[in-house]
């Protein structure tokens, strides 16, 4: 029995709303971090089969920056934030320049830049989870962020395996936003474990 097989339009709308508010908060956090106007597109929320998952982030072998944060307490599981390399550089450029540091221009990422990315992702995930917690009245605690840069499919295998334990789909939130005309492509994947998923829905008055 797949976890998602009983989901109807209304359930998906609820999840979409969580994604939308969560991403909105995350983007606002970035905006205040870099002190620039950030524009957000309406996020899309989809249930995607494992097979086609990577197509939504540009292909299975495209190189992405992935930050994984474990979550615990009332809701347990993990949240992953993915962005393409250009996005990482664009974000870094904005953040570091606001602190008077010059970002590297040769396409590589320094130690400092990697930890800056971890921290940005941490702040974004924190605001995302904060809104999840606020909406559901459930406590959510986040662990230290972990970063990896690799092929999309290899990074996606981590949340996909978690979802794979309960379904044949991944709940995927695609959020893109732009910072003063610089496009930024980011993707959130929230992976509550099975009990937590039911808890989230129930707290929003939706019985699965």
């Amino acid at each position, binding site marked *: 029995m797949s976890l998602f097989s009983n989901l109807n339009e209304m359930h998906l709308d609820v999840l979409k709303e969580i994604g939308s508010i969560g991403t909105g908060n995350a983007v606002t956090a970035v905006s205040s971090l870099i002190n620039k106007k950030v524009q957000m597109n309406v996020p899309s929320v989809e249930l995607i089969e494992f097979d086609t998952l990577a197509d939504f982030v540009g292909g299975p072998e495209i190189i992405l920056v992935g930050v994984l944060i474990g979550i615990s307490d009332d809701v347990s599981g993990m949240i992953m934030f993915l962005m393409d390399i250009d996005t990482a550089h664009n974000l870094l450029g904005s953040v570091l320049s606001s602190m008077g540091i010059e970002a590297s221009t040769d396409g590589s990422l320094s130690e400092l830049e990697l930890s800056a990315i971890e921290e940005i992702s941490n702040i974004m995930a924190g605001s995302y989870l904060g809104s999840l917690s606020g909406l559901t009245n459930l406590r959510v605690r986040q662990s230290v962020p972990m970063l990896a840069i690799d*092929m999309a499919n*290899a*990074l996606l295998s981590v949340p996909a395996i978690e979802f794979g334990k309960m379904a*044949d789909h991944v709940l995927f939130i695609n959020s893109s936003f732009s910072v003063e005309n610089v496009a930024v492509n980011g993707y959130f994947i929230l992976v509550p474990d099975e009990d937590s998923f039911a808890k989230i829905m129930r707290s929003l008055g939706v019985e699965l």
Partner: protein
Amino acid sequence: MTKIIVGMADLKVDRAPCMLTTLGLGSCVGIALYDPASKVAGLAHIMLPDSTKMQNNQNLAKFADTAMVKMIQDMAAIGANKTRLRAKIAGGAQMFSFNSKNDDMRIGDRNVEATLRLLKQYSIPLIAYEVGANYGRTVELYADDGRFLIKTIGHGNREL
């Protein structure tokens, strides 16, 4: 030559000439089986070690145990001899360095362990493997001679 792409939680078999590939294995394991006499090749991209531990287990290619059985059957159906099969495997990485003893986080290791156990159970010799570490791997299995290529980002390419 036909190129056949094996997705995540998927498996494919075919006869030479063809190349079976699966892209960006992370913690998943790519199991390549090959019969050199009939030149029948099979490649599975498994995500989890054990279907019997899960309620949602209809997708046979998702689990090491059910994928192994199905792949051997499918290969036999197009001319492979079970006793001639040999295996090469890759994947089972830990993409993020969790500082935790949580078993869930060692899923790559567990996928590899399950695969090794199953190969032993079905008496299929393991010819070569590259597993573990913390990076993704794309693999290609050539049905004409059974060679198995591994491609990575920043960790070199190899032929097994």
